[in-house]
């Protein structure tokens, strides 16, 4: 470690700054513009560098790490293609508000704009998908810029920040100074909720007969889950969560309604449609949550707490906006409300009736395997205590329905962008951050193929991750929409003829692998996989091919009006 005041080159300053930001792991891939950094890295011992096999993998790993630990994920890639390969991962982190700092090498300053070899205007490309980004033109600006980047990525609503570092800047020398504070005139997020707004919110809650808490990932980010539990239990307010909010409130608690929205539970959506007060906390009224806006929660007054003011009144007009940190909001509300337990048994009984009317259930057959069973079994065998990373599609929605998340930072999933290929690398990233709980990916055969190269990374580092592959040899969610809404034209969604033998693929990578095609073998495979900790293990679950996720709100439909079962039972095989 170098002390401030010493003369260092840009690459040395880069690592000094990472140390001061308490970074102990980075996900990267070397290249021409970064040779100086990798030269310095060769002798760096206190920061672990994980060599990925594709830069997209690095970004998803960094995000998985960030979501599992709450610390910012750090990515290091070279210029041009290295940088452009990070775009999907950055966009994903931006949509899901994950803290991430991406460092890209850039061609030498003198060549910028000349269409130089491996040049791409990555600052221009990533402007709309980063919280902010920087091009460092002078080595003296490097340390202050890195300081700002970490501050921006982790303060207020988190998000990805990119720093582009030209090759000459990384080689140039200057006296290293570490700025103790950050001054950004244009960035002052509101943490403390306005007392008047909180008091009004408390009054509305006290008056409500049929209140409902609608909880998003912001509550987990803010660390507000304990305050949430207390508020819900003391006031007897049922809780429904978004995909990113799952785990904010224990899924096995009687007040938990599970997820709302397109593939949410019937009773959660009925509760939204019939509540008289909707309390949205750290959630953003995403279209997958609201369905048709005109019919969304029409009987309810709406309170909306969010740290990002742009989320307020963006999709749904609310009656009381409260801008600020979600933990501060929940704690302030608790202080305002009387401690006595409210009697909301009539409202809870009503919701229970909806639950009984249309529970989440599935049938088990001896000779075939259903995804619902697999996920239910994973949930039972891990007692809802694992870190579950999903890919995108049917298995993701079934996971939200059948895995009983009991604690925060337990689901890591691409919610906003819906990035197929996210699951495996995000799992690897999470496994570098979490060692006291099993880290599991539940993914589909389509998504796994999109970043399967990262299996190398997991094998090389002997990460004890479990890859639970839900293999129906279909792009299942697209197939489901084709069946329901596109005249059963199964255009390019059947992968059976082209999929590889995933067990053999995994084994070729040096990964332990097995398969299961009925409830008994599946149960055994899950317990074997959970017991194996010497490296990654893949289980190829050969599930029935044409199963569909229900209940479901058709796109643009009203959430009070769910499809409860397949329209055409004859297609079920």
């Amino acid at each position, binding site marked *: 470690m170098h002390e401030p005041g010493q003369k260092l080159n840009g690459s040395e300053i880069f690592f000094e700054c990472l140390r001061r930001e308490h970074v102990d792991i980075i996900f990267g891939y070397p290249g021409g513009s970064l040779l100086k950094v990798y030269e310095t890295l060769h002798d760096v011992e206190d920061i672990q560098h994980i060599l990925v096999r594709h830069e997209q993998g690095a970004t998803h790993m960094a995000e998985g790490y960030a979501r599992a630990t709450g610390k910012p994920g750090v990515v290091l890639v070279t210029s041009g293609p290295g940088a452009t390969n990070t775009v999907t991962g950055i966009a994903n982190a931006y949509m899901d508000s994950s803290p991430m700092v991406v460092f890209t090498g850039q061609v030498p300053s003198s060549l910028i704009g000349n269409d130089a070899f491996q040049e791409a205007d990555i*600052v*221009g490309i990533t402007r*709309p998908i980063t919280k902010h980004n920087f091009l460092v033109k002078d080595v003296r600006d490097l340390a202050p810029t890195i300081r700002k980047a970490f501050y921006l990525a982790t303060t207020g609503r988190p998000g990805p920040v990119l720093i582009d570092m030209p090759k000459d800047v990384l080689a140039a020398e200057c006296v290293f100074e570490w700025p103790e504070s950050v001054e*950004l*005139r*244009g*960035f002052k997020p509101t943490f403390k909720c306005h007392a008047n707004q909180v008091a009004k919110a408390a009054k509305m809650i006290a008056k409500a007969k049929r209140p409902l808490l609608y909880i998003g990932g912001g509550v987990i980010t803010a660390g507000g889950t304990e305050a949430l539990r207390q508020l819900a239990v003391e006031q007897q307010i049922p809780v429904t969560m978004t995909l990113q909010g799952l785990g904010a409130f224990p899924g096995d608690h009687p007040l938990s309604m599970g997820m709302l929205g397109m593939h949410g539970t019937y009773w959660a959506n009925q509760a939204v449609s019939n509540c008289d007060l909707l309390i949205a906390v750290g959630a953003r009224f995403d279209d997958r949550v609201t369905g048709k806006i005109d019919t969304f929660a029409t009987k309810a007054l709406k309170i909306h707490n969010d740290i990002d003011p742009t989320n*307020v*009144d963006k999709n749904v007009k609310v009656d009381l906006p409260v801008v600020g940190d979600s933990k501060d909001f929940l704690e302030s509300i608790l202080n305002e409300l009387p401690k006595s337990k409210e009697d909301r048994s009539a409202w809870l009984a009503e919701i229970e009736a909806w639950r009984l009317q249309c529970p989440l259930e599935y049938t088990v057959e001896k000779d075939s395997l259903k995804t619902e069973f697999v996920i239910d079994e994973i949930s039972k065998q891990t007692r809802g205590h694992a870190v579950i990373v999903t890919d995108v599609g049917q298995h993701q929605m079934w996971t939200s329905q059948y895995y009983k998340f009991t604690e925060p930072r337990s689901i890591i999933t691409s919610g906003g962008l819906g990035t197929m290929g996210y699951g495996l690398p995000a799992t690897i990233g999470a496994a570098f951050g979490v060692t006291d709980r099993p880290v599991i990916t539940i993914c589909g055969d389509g998504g796994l193929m999109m970043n399967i190269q990262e299996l190398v990374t997991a094998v090389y580092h002997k990460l004890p991750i479990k890859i639970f592959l839900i293999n129906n040899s279909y792009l299942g969610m697209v197939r489901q929409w084709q069946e329901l809404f596109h005249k059963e034209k199964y255009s390019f969604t059947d992968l059976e003829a082209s999929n590889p033998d995933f067990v053999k693929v995994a084994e070729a990578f040096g990964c332990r692998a097995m398969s299961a095609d009925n409830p008994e073998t599946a149960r055994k495979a899950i317990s074997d996989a959970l017991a194996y900790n010497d490296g990654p293990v893949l289980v190829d679950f050969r599930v029935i091919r044409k199963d569909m996720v229900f209940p479901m709100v058709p796109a643009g439909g009203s959430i009070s009006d769910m499809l409860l079962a397949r329209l055409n039972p004859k297609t079920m095989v």
Partner: protein
Amino acid sequence: MKHLISVLVENKFGTLNRVAAMFSARGFNLESISIGETEDPEVSRMTIVTRGEDRIISQVLKQLNRLVDTIKVTDLTHQPHVERELLLMSLKLSKSTQHEIFELTNVFKGKVVDIKQKSITIEVIGSPDKVNTAIDLFRPFGIRELARSGAVAIHRGEN
């Protein structure tokens, strides 16, 4: 309705792009945008003219505020303000129209900034409405080229 928004931003490369890109990415209308340094060389002032119903304008203001490089966002529309635009316009010139063009330029308190055998260039400064009217009235003489600066605006009085 039309809104006139004044934005103080960090005077850095890329800031104009960030603002303009935000408007296009979110589908906001952007009628004009002008930018220039202020009394503080580290700060620039942008004047933006946009249209939209109240809900949209509220989003525009919040999204502008959200950009890290914006320091202050003010909707001047309903506040006392001065708004000006510069018009430079080159017209076809002939003996028969010369007199009329001079007269009309005077009516708009404009100036002749260049004159050649067959062309004349005038400048008019005023509200965008005045500039629109000037363009309409000069049009019959034959406009060769024109350039508008877009609106710039500032608070009136002590604010």
